[in-house]
């Protein structure tokens, strides 16, 4: 069991990297959706 910390570290790294990436993509997706919505409203206003 002396090698257990290496196994633990490897699986922790895998999950940490995947979760960080999912979080980063989610953040970018929300920002893009917000920008799109704001632009649509602004365009609607400009056309009036």
């Amino acid at each position, binding site marked *: *069991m002396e090698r257990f910390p290496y196994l633990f*570290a*490897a699986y922790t790294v*895998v999950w940490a990297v*995947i979760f960080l*990436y999912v979080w980063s993509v989610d953040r970018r997706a929300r920002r*893009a959706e917000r920008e*799109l919505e704001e*632009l649509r409203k602004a365009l609607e206003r*400009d056309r009036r």
Partner: protein
Amino acid sequence: MLAKRLENLASLLLPWLAGPAMVAALYLIFLVVPTERDQGIVQRIFYVHVPSAWTAFLGFFVVCGASLLYLWRGSPVFDRIARASAEVGMVFCTLVLLTGPIWARPIWGAWWTWDPRLTMTIILWTIYASYLLLRAFGGGEDQISRYAAVLGIVGAIDIPLIVVSVRLWRGMHPAVMMSRDPQGGLRDPFMRVTLLVAALAFLLVYAWLLVVRLRTLRVADEVAELSRERDLVVS
């Protein structure tokens, strides 16, 4: 319209497929598969290290294929697929480069060695890191997309070299999956099944992340188009 519907369906279904597949893989890795005789418990890193490598290779092959199609047809859809796949491929390539040294330390006694396969893998990582930097800081012009497509195609040449490097140059990295030794390879059926299930789980996670990233890139392109339209309306 059909593409959007497929995108919605995929982003709804894929997490429900990837999640159970990952749970099944973890169950097999920690509760079913036998402990390897020589390396002990740490050998279980193999079941995330190898699927990460396969998934990264798949991701970069998709970059190569989509880039070829982009150069041929000029469609922004292929450009977005290449860009999204490069990013997701980099996530898995990073996992290979992080789990490898953690596994190497107790087995080889060193975190890193300039073995041919390790060196080629870090070259692959650097090529696609350059690709992503070019996409991030090069601007949104078509010319940058074309340069990036060429880089994406050239980068994939490194993958077959990584695969054959263990045989060609005989470094420290073991050739488990390409072993010609009748006593080598994965002989235990549970080990083979676990590797396949883990590979399937990683493939589904890749597909899900790719679809999510593609949607973000499509929305970003729509934002850019609407901004241009608004500038025209204002002027």
